[in-house]
Every structure is written in C-alpha cells, then in structure tokens.
C-alpha cells in the first residue's frame, strides 16, 4: 500500500465509529466504547505506520507523502484536495494519535464504565452516584455510569476525525473544515452536560468566541485564494506565490498582502488557541468532562491553532530580510509573550484545579506563539510536541484527582466542590500513581531541569529569544516561566502534599486502571519526548541523541533554519526560574491548614483580587460587547425598529388588505363562486344519491353488467361503426 493511501484512511475509522454509534449502537454502552476505541486504535496504528515510514524515508522535507484528488470544479479548473505528510505533520500526527488513544481509554474509566446506573441520573447532568446495598444491608454510595456514555464516545470520535483531517490535509480549506468540525465538537462536548446552566453558557461562549477568530481566518483564506488561486500547501508556499504576496499592496498603508493574510490567519489562531484577547472561553470550557478538557486544551484543538501558524510560517515570514521580523511576527511575538505572562499571573490566584491548568495552557500557547514571533519555528513545534504530552497528562491527572475526591464526597456525603484545591491535600498517599504521574507532568510544565521534556523545549525557546537578541520577549517569557513553576508547585503542594483538609480528601481512592494506564504512558512520554530535542552542543549530555527535532522538523521549510549555538545565559535563566519557582511554590504552600485563606491574599492585596477575577475580562467583555449587543437587539432592533416602525407599516397594509378582502368576499366570492361551487357539489351529490343503487356489492351483477357493456361496445364497433 502506498503511504498516501494509509494517510487517506487515517480519519476514516473515527468517522465510521461516529456514525455507527449514532445510528446503531447508541443503546449499548459496551459496543459504543469498543467501536470508539477500536477506531482510535486503528487510526493510531495507521499513524504510527506513517510515522515509521516517514522517519525511514530520510528526505521527507523534499518529497512529502502526498496524493491529490479533484473535489469540485472551479471554472475550468478543479479545486483539489488531498493529503500531505511532511515532517511537521509527522510530529503532530505522532502526539495527536497517542494522546487521542490515551484519552479514549481514559474516558472509559472516567465515565465510570462498569458502575451501576445512577439512582436519579438523567441525561444532560453529570452522574450523581448510585446507592448499592451489600449483603449485610449496608448502603453505600458509589459513582454511577454516565447516562450519555455512548453519545460521549460518538462526539469524541467525531472530534478525532476533525483533528486527523486537519493534520493530514494538504490545503488550508480542508484544514479549515477539520478546524470547524472540532469547533462544533468542542461546543457539543463543553455543553455535554447541557442541563447545567454553567456548562450551557460555557459552550455558547466558547463557540461564539472562537467564531470571531474563525470568521477572520476565513477572510484570510478567501483573500489568499483570491490572490494565489489555490489553497494547496505546495502552491501557496512556493517562491512565486510568496513573492506575489509580498509584492501586492493592500488598502492599508505599508502593509503587504502577505502581512494582511498572515494577520488574518493568526487571528484564527488567537481564537482557537485562546490567546489574549480571545482567551476568555478556555477557562470556562472546563465545565465539560475532564477527558474533553484534555482533548481540547492539551492535545488537539488548541494545538491546532499553533499548528496552523507553524504551517503557514512561510507566509508569516514572507519578506523577512536579514533576520528582521515581519510585522506579523512582531504582532505575534507581542501577543504571545503578553498572553504567556498574563495567563500565568491569573493562574496564580485560581483555586479550581482544572482552571489553573487552563490558564497554564493559555500561557504555554502564548509561549509558542511568541517563539514563532521571534522566528523560532522549530522551537515552537518542539514545545507544541512536548506540551501536548505533559498537558494531556496533567489534565488527565487532574481528572483522576477529581474522580478520587468525588468518590470521597460520595462516601462522606459532604457538600464541597471536588475541584477546589483547598479541599484536597495529602492525596499523595491515597492516589500514589496519580501523584507520581502528576508530579512528572507538573515538573515538565515547570521545566524541571534535564529530566523533563518541558525543560528542553522551553529552554530552546529562551535560547532562541536570546540568540535573536529579543530582550523584551526573553524577559517576559522568563518571568512567565518563573510564575509557571510557582503555580505548578502551588498546585502540587495543595493537592498532594501536606495533610488532608477535608474528610472527602481523606477518603479519596486511586482510580481504575483504565484511567491510570494512560497516565503512566503519558508520563513516560512527558519525559522522553524531550530527548530528541536536546541541542547537539549541550554540555555533557548533548550529542548522545542527535538533535532530531531540529533536523527533522526543520526540513519542512525551504531554507533550513540555522541551529543556534549553545549559550550558558538562557540555560542559567531557565534553571533559575524553574527551580526557583518550584522552591518558592513549595515554601509558600507547604503547610496550609483547612479553611485558611490563600497565603498570597494578604501580601498582594488588591492585586490578588484582580488576579482572582481574571483582570475582570469577562465583566469587561460583558460590558463592552454583550450588553450593547443585547441592547441593540432587544431595545433598538426589536422594540423600536421591528415593533414600532416595521410592524406599524405592516399593520397599516394589513388593514387595507383586510377591508379589500372583505369586499371581495361579500360581493364576489360568496354569491358567485361559492354559489357555483355549491351547485356543482349538490348536483354531484344528487346524482350520486340516485345512482348509488347500481352498486349492489354483488360481484356477479357487476360481471353481468360488464359483459353487457362489452357486448354492446363490440356490437357497435363490429356492425355499426365498420359499416361502410
């Protein structure tokens, strides 16, 4: 089989699984999850085959696996779609396939497969637990199975389909299709527990916010198609097209088409990857089930945004001369770095275990965007790669924690929020596997030196910033990294270390193997995923493994980026910020008694309140956008324009029409037309009443009559008509 054939087949199993679950197996939970996992496994195996083939092919950058078919005619040419596997795709495919499979397996445990049905669970609400009675008559409450279990697997299958389409497509249009499918799925999944008002609102918010980015991105696509005549990668990234784009002017002074398109596409990323100012939807999206959070916020959807900007890097960097960043890149560097710091500060003051992770995701994505903004293309891809593993790990780990605490809540009957870190503590002993994997993930996120993958990728970004002498970015990112390490340690300390602060935390239990197995596997990846990216000239350990990421992913670009030379300064910075942040985090939060406030609250004062309320961005947006548009629609458009002006006019017309109608009715319709109609009807009725006696219901009489008529007709034709 040709590699490209396999690539074509990659998105198919999840799609099939989606339809099969929806149409056939939705009543049977076992079949549904088997279908979903089988599909994910098939795609996973296919992806690994592709990855192996790609690595062995040696010069994938020049000759990607590609295959093209005609889709729809555009004038006298065809719009072509196809698949495209180059090193960037391979790297993305690798982590996407693994994380998706892990999340599928994890969902089985997370949704309590094998547990009894809930006592009063209903679709649209999270399971409330079931009461079991053992042989001694003791009643105890246990977690109950998700009522919409099959639906969940259908949705995440569709989601996986969208992601695979996005990754393997060879043009921006099918990429956009996959992008939008994921948008839809994220809406459906965030609002999975649709009976919860908060989940419903979060779903709508996520959908609308990302929509803003998508519309702008579509504008960019349209403009690009208008200029280049195609959206296929090999066309739009060719020398001629890039030259054409840079040389075409736009109505905005001093901005070339390339810059405009780049900004438009980047804005799509801002929406999808939750960058400032469109970051508001992502923390709210935590209302969805945890596997969804992991799927959307770690592995797939938000990385899709970064993937897009890495993919269109040739356009973004078009016109770059002598290493001078373009306008687009400057904008990206600014937004990325700003978001990185901004989100990290918010994360400091959050108590919800998942929200902390959400802000950390925003922050890390900002990192990547900033890296691209300074031209560190490979470093961004590398960080994307490692981040996917450890962030998925962290989310799944947090899900496991929540699950454990929920178990405790069910057991004790306490009325507490199982997601609040201040209600936890001391879980290290209760959930050892979760603790160790979470620790590895957290250290990777903080960039714990040398061991974890996060260190290498983050270090590379800092090193790049240093090499490009981009001091503001370097400083901001370094500070953000410090904060990251701090709040990560805060999270770990609050959750796992110290003593249990509630009874529920005391009764927490380790999750099932379906949940912990993905954790262990992902933890392994959170460590080894960094090794292929160790710089070759790193002291002592550099050079054991060739800097694979740099060689391989860098091939994607026409001109290979220069490998930066090793320098001690960024290394020391990253060592300092990570270890410092971790130490500080542990020191501040090492011993919090139950019910105590956050130790940062007093020293920071009003700033803490600002951070806790996320800089009042939700309120700001509410005030600037939501309320005015509500006013516009409710008061202005509905009451004034619609009810008064348009309706008034219409009522006037209707009154005239009505009187005209009654004239017609009384003087034409009733006497003339109705009279005629009644006459016809009455006549038919009278004839029928007279003639119905012919129908006696006796078959033989009918036959005799038919014969008489037949004979008469025959007689007429033979003897009368045929007479000359």
């Amino acid at each position, binding site marked *: 089989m040709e590699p490209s054939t396999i690539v074509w087949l990659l998105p198919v199993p999840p799609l099939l699984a989606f339809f099969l679950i929806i149409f056939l197996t939705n009543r049977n939970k076992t079949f549904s999850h088997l279908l979903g996992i089988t599909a994910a496994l098939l795609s996973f195996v296919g992806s690994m085959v592709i990855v192996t083939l790609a690595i062995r092919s040696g010069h994938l950058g020049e000759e990607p696996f590609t295959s093209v078919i005609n889709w729809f005619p555009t004038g006298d040419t065809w719009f072509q779609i196809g698949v495209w596997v180059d090193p960037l795709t391979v790297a993305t495919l690798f982590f996407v396939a693994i994380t998706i499979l892990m999340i599928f397996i994890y969902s089985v445990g997370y949704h309590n497969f094998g547990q009894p049905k809930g006592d009063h669970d209903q679709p649209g609400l999270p399971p409330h637990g079931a009461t079991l009675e053992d042989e001694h008559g003791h009643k105890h409450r246990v977690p109950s199975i998700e009522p919409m279990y099959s639906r969940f697997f259908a949705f995440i299958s569709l989601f996986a389909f969208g992601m695979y389409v996005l990754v393997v497509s060879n043009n921006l249009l099918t990429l956009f299709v996959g992008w939008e499918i994921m948008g839809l799925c994220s809406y459906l999944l965030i609002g999975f527990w649709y009976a919860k008002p908060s989940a419903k609102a979060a779903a709508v918010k996520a959908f609308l916010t990302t929509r803003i980015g998508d519309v702008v991105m579509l504008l960019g696509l349209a403009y690009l198609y208008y200029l280049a005549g195609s959206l296929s990668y090999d066309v739009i990234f060719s020398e001629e097209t890039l030259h054409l784009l840079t040389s075409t002017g736009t109505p905005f002074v001093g901005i070339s088409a390339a810059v405009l398109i780049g900004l438009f596409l980047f804005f799509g990323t801002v929406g999808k990857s939750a960058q400032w100012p469109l970051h508001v939807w992502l923390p709210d999206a935590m209302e969805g089930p945890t596997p969804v959070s992991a799927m959307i916020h770690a592995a797939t959807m938000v990385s899709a945004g970064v993937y897009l900007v890495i993919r269109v890097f040739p356009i973004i960097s078009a016109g770059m001369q002598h290493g001078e960043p373009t306008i687009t890149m400057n904008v990206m560097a600014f937004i990325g770095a700003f978001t990185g710091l901004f989100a990290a500060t918010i994360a400091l003051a959050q108590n919800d275990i998942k929200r902390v992770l959400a802000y950390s995701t925003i922050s890390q994505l900002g990192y990547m965007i900033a890296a691209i903004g300074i031209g560190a293309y490979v470093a961004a891809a590398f960080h994307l790669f490692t981040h996917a593993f450890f962030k998925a790990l962290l989310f799944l780990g947090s899900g496991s924690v929540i699950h454990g605490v929920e178990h405790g809540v069910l057991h004790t009957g306490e009325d507490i929020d199982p997601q609040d870190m201040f209600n936890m503590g001391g879980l290290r002993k209760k959930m050892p596997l979760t603790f160790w994997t979470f620790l590895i993930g957290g250290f990777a996120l903080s960039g714990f030196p040398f061991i974890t993958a996060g260190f290498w990728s983050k270090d590379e970004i800092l090193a790049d910033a240093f090499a490009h002498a981009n001091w503001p970015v370097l400083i901001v990112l370094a500070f953000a990294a410090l904060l990251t390490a701090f709040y990560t340690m805060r999270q770990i300390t609050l959750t796992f270390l110290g003593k249990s602060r509630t009874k529920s935390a005391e009764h927490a239990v380790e999750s099932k193997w379906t949940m912990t197995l993905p954790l262990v596997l992902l933890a392994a990846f959170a460590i080894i995923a960094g090794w292929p990216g160790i710089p070759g000239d790193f002291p002592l350990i550099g050079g054991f493994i060739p800097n694979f990421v740099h060689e391989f992913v860098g091939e994607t670009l026409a001109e290979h980026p220069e490998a930066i030379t090793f320098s001690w300064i960024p290394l020391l910075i990253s060592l300092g910020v990570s270890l410092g942040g971790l130490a500080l985090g542990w020191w501040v939060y090492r011993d919090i008694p139950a019910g105590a406030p956050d130790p940062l609250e007093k020293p920071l004062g009003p700033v803490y309140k600002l951070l806790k309320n996320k800089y009042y961005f939700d309120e700001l947006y509410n005030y600037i956008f939501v309320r005015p548009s509500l006013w516009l629609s409710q008061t202005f458009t509905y009451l004034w324009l619609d009810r008064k002006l348009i309706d008034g006019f219409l009522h006037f017309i209707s009154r005239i029409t009505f009187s005209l109608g009654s004239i017609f009715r009384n003087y034409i319709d009733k006497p003339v037309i109705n009279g005629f109609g009644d006459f016809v009807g009455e006549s038919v009725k009278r004839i029928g009443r007279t003639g119905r006696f012919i129908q006696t219901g*006796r078959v*033989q*009489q009918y036959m*005799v009559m038919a*014969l*008489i008529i037949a*004979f008469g007709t*025959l007689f007429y034709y033979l003897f009368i008509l045929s007479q000359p």
Partner: protein
Amino acid sequence: MTVMQVVFLVTAVVSLGGAVMVVTTRNLIHAALWLILTLFGVAVMYGLLSAPFFTVIQVVIYIGAIAILMIFAIMLTRRVKQEPGSSVNKGWWLAGLMALVLFTALVWMLSTWPGFQTTLPELPQDFDSIKVLGAALVSTEGYVIPFEIASVLLLAALIGSVAVAWERKS
C-alpha cells in the same frame, strides 16, 4: 367417421354434459364430482391433441389437487348438507342469456375465420413435445421469465393462502 372422431364426440358429449351438471346440480359435492368428470374429458381432449404431458398434468393438478381441494373446502364450509333455497341467484336468466349470446357470437365469429377448418397436420418426425417444452420453459430464448414468474406466483399464492386461512387464536 374415423375412430378419432368417435372418441372426440363421445368425450365432448360427456364433458359438456358434465359441465352442465356442474353448473346446475344443487348438491355441491355432486357438482365437484361432475367437475372431475368434465376435467377428465378435457384430459382426453389433450390426449387427442397429442399432448400427453397435458393429459397427465390435467389429472395431477386439476383432479388430484384442485378438485380434491374444492371437495375439501365444500366439506369445511358446509353447515347443513343441503343449503336451503335456490342454488342460483335472481339474475340467472340474464347470465344464461349472456352465455348463450357469447357462445353464438364466438361460433359465428370463428366460422368467419378462414383458419377455422384447418385439418390436422402431421407432427414432425421424432418430435418429443415434452423435451421441446421442457427446453423452451427453461431456455433464455424461450419462456424462462414467464416460467419463473409463474413460480413466484405459486410461492406467493402458497404464502398468501396460508396467511388468509390462518385461524388466529384470540
């Protein structure tokens, strides 16, 4: 008068007499037995027309199956041995008139047809009508489609009659 003519005439008289009895006898069982006689006469007619296959299947199907099924049905649907009242309906004279008119018309029209008096042609040498018929019924050049449709019809009738006559236990 050849032997064949004698046989024909005897058979014709017996069959037609039987047929008249079929439509006039009040006792339905007797009518059915007369029907069998008539069908037997028709079988002989097929023999005279050198169609032995039809002779035999006339006996198998009409006498062996149809007539016996009818007797069966008569016995199943009979409450008293003799139904009271007339065995014909009120319009019987009109029906008889129709039959007479039809017969006259048919004979008159046939007699004006030039092929009416066709004499018996010799059958070709070594002509095995069963072989030819069998081959024609299943050959794609012949009548395989009508044949198959007839098979499907029989199957449908089988299922249909079972479904119709099924006594549902309430």
